[in-house]
């Protein structure tokens, strides 16, 4: 018997793992479903956070700065001022609102009482520019600095923006991010732990078998390989189950629930991430198995 190599045939490891999986199919199914549940929860949490992100990302778009122009500027000077504003890299859009347009708006605002404004011999409203800025620039210090830059442009009288709105956008954004990070950290720890303990229990149940294999002269590798493979396959199965669960949920939400809860119609599905679920399952299964068998002694 001497001289026989220690290499272990990969097909046999695979066969061992498949046999073991099949012979305890119910308990393994249970483990896979546990992992699937964890991954599904993770995916749902990520999707909800993703949508919160999208929602808060749209908030800065609604933020505009009003730039009042000086009285009596020539058309050319106005054009210069507007292009001066547009030249700033933080500016996304700039819409010129003439004195007449401003008056029209005011009249619309005053509704039926607009006749009073007719009595004015001169349009008292200033011309202005509505400036939209890049969302990266939407933060209090940045906007303050930006206003100062604009004030330096010739022909500009004053700059006005909603300080209060800005700080509440800030708060909502950082709040959503903070809570999101927290939820993701806790969920990740939770799912990893569930996988670990599932594989650990799986392994624990075979303690006697492992001891026998050791007494028969099996190396650590020979003993561990099928367990790692088994853990990986269970994790993979869990990931696939989570994937189909997510697909089912998506169907349920977009077809059935969206008509009842209108905002769900605009729910965004990060499908690109969903395809990584099986990979994630495989990974946690392998990781759990490796941690679980880590302290194997002879």
């Amino acid at each position, binding site marked *: 018997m001497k001289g026989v190599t220690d290499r272990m*045939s990969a097909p046999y490891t695979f066969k061992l793992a498949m046999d073991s999986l099949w012979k305890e199919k119910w308990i393994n199914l249970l483990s896979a479903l546990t992992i699937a549940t964890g991954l599904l929860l993770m995916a749902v949490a990520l999707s909800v956070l993703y949508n919160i992100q999208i929602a808060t990302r749209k908030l800065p778009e609604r933020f505009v700065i009003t730039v009042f122009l000086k009285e009596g500027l020539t058309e050319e000077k106005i054009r210069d001022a507007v292009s001066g504003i547009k030249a700033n890299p933080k500016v996304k859009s700039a819409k010129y609102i003439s004195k007449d347009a401003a008056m029209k708006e005011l009249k619309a605002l005053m509704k039926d009482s607009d006749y009073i404004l007719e009595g004015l011999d001169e349009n008292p409203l200033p011309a202005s520019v509505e400036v939209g800025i890049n969302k990266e620039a939407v933060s209090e210090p940045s906007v303050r600095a930006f206003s100062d830059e604009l004030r330096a442009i010739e022909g500009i009288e004053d700059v006005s923006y909603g300080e209060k709105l800005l700080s509440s956008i800030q708060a909502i954004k950082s709040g959503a991010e903070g809570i999101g990070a927290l939820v993701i950290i806790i969920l990740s720890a939770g799912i990893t732990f569930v996988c670990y303990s599932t594989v650990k229990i799986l392994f624990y149940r075979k303690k006697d078998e492992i001891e026998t294999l050791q007494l028969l002269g099996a190396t650590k590798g020979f003993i561990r390989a099928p367990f790692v493979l088994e853990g990986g396959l269970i994790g993979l199965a869990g990931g696939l189950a989570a994937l189909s669960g997510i697909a089912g949920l998506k169907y349920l939400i977009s077809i059935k629930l969206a008509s009842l809860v209108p905002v769900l119609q605009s729910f965004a599905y990060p499908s690109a991430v969903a395809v990584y679920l099986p990979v994630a399952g495989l990974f946690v299964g392998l990781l759990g198995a490796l941690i679980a068998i880590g302290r194997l002694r002879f």
Partner: protein
Amino acid sequence: MIEFHGVTKAYENSTALRNLSFLIEKGEMVFITGPSGAGKSTMLKLMYMAERPDEGRIVINGTEIETLGDSDIPYLRRNIGVVFQDFRLLPRKTAFDNVALALRIRGMGESDIKPLVNETLKMVNLRHKTDSLPAALSGGEQQRVVIARAIVSEPAIVLADEPTGNLDPDTSSGIMRILKEINARGTTIVIATHNRELLKDTGRRILRLDGGNLLERGD
């Protein structure tokens, strides 16, 4: 082949073996006997390194086992076939796979394994139970699977702990015949047993244990 030098082994609350010294030569066939709890199994466990001695030196197949690291043990164990008193069959594997395991562990290819396992199962009269799980075998059938697993890899040493406890006298003598044959081909064999019939007229050395002491060296 197997050397014990002043070996003592104690468990938490009792001393199982006291200052044991003996030598088993390569190719010998030795019996160990003694009343229940005398320390026979403990002695075999020290030989296959399931337990470590508290005092004294053990040399197996030329290797001082004290010097062995964890990762060396599997390789030394591959020279030893063990018939465990409590069988230690893997419950989810068939008789064939339980026997084949001894070869797979040693890295033998599947094509060589099949004929060898089938031949060994035939030797112990279990060719018809190849595909049975241990739970579907009678006590004596299980014991014969364990014997087949111990000898299939043709190890240098066979340690058999009460190998005929669940066998009828006829089957027992069949098994003893096989062990003698293997021994004749050079394998060192140590058998722990209560069975007086096995011990009768063997012409072999018998080590008698009682309360952890060696009563009779037999040599």
